[in-house]
């Protein structure tokens, strides 16, 4: 075997990193090879120098007052359970958010089920509203009370004067006298809505 391999073994042997069998073979070789013995001696010397210099450096480091390691800033916490508190805050925030969302959803369904309009339209345009119960008080009510005429609320009456569409009585409808009597009992309700524009008045007939 060439000496190069024994040199590599010697580099491990010098610190006891070589196996038992290889160590025995190396020791046997060193007895008859001066070159490898010199290599081992140089290795021992270099290792000794290295350890001695490292010892001096360590002693010098031990005298250093300054080396510092910064700890990342923690939140103030007397018990030291910083992360537990962070988790607690996160949990509370999550629960609060979930509660708010639940309340909003519940409120939405309550309002929907109670037929409370969620959107009333442009509030600023409506100034006041009054109910007119008398059929005589309103000309539209008078038209509705006429015998052979049925007043229907026009879908195109938004923002202008209500113009009810007139039509003749259908063949299957009750006679005029009967309908007149019913109209007399339950007069239609007329809602008069005043808007910001003084020239615009909305009149709505609310069918009972």
């Amino acid at each position, binding site marked *: 075997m060439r000496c190069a391999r024994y040199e590599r073994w010697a580099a*491990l042997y010098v*610190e006891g990193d070589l196996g038992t069998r290889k160590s025995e073979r190396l020791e046997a070789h060193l007895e008859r090879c001066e070159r490898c013995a010199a290599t081992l001696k*140089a290795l021992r010397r270099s290792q000794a120098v290295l350890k001695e210099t490292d010892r001096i450096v*360590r002693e010098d480091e031990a005298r250093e007052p*300054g080396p510092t390691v910064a700890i990342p800033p923690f939140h103030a916490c007397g018990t030291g359970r910083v992360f537990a508190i962070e988790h607690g805050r996160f949990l509370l925030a999550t629960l609060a958010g979930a509660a708010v969302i639940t309340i909003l959803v519940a409120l939405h369904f309550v309002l929907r089920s109670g037929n409370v309009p969620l959107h009333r339209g442009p509030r600023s345009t409506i100034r006041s509203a009054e109910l007119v119960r008398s059929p005589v008080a309103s000309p539209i009510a008078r038209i509705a009370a006429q015998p052979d005429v049925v007043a229907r609320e026009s879908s195109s009456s938004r923002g202008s004067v209500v113009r009810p569409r007139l039509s003749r009585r259908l063949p299957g409808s009750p006679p005029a006298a009967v309908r007149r009597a019913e109209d007399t009992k339950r007069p239609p309700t007329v809602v008069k809505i005043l808007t910001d524009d003084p020239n615009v008045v909305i009149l709505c007939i609310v069918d009972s």
Partner: protein
Amino acid sequence: MDAGACTMIHGGVMAQDLDLPSGRGPGSRSGEGSLTLRLRAGESLAYEEAVRRFAPRIRALAWRMLGSGEDAEDAAQEVFLRLYRYRRRLDPQRALLPWLYRLTVNVSRTMLKRRRPRRAQPEALPSDTVMNGTARTMEAVDARLTLTAALQRLNPDERAAVVLRDLMGHSTAEVAQALGCREGTIRSRLCRARLKMKDSITGLGEVAP
């Protein structure tokens, strides 16, 4: 500890703190498993204890890897920052110190690569920083120069193996565990490194004490 403040802990290095007797692994120190558990639980006091306990060794390893006191401080800061950042990944069944050693070697290797564009010799240790250190005596200055010159010829892998095995006294198995490779790999690195250092120290004309 003040909230929002960056607390500085002075890590006085005792010489015996750097030595681990053979047979006692880096992770076999008493209380290290409980310390890992406390770190995982998020105790700030556990983090302070980890810094106090391990900072000298981490700094010593970083200095020997980088050859610069300032860079070693930066590396130690980065290591403990990563310890804080990845505290939830800690395994209580495994020792903490080998993981910190591996972090230190990785951080040092990254810092050495960053030096590459502005230095002619990639992984060379900055010899000028030796004199800028806090060496107290001429003997210490000379020792730092000798140590730096000896480690300068090694690549980072060989340097880490030599520092952990020969200078910090860990066994080959512990070094392999810390660096995440096989024992045979560590032996190969040690072999090459010792032969290189033999030549460099002989070239410096050092005399054995």
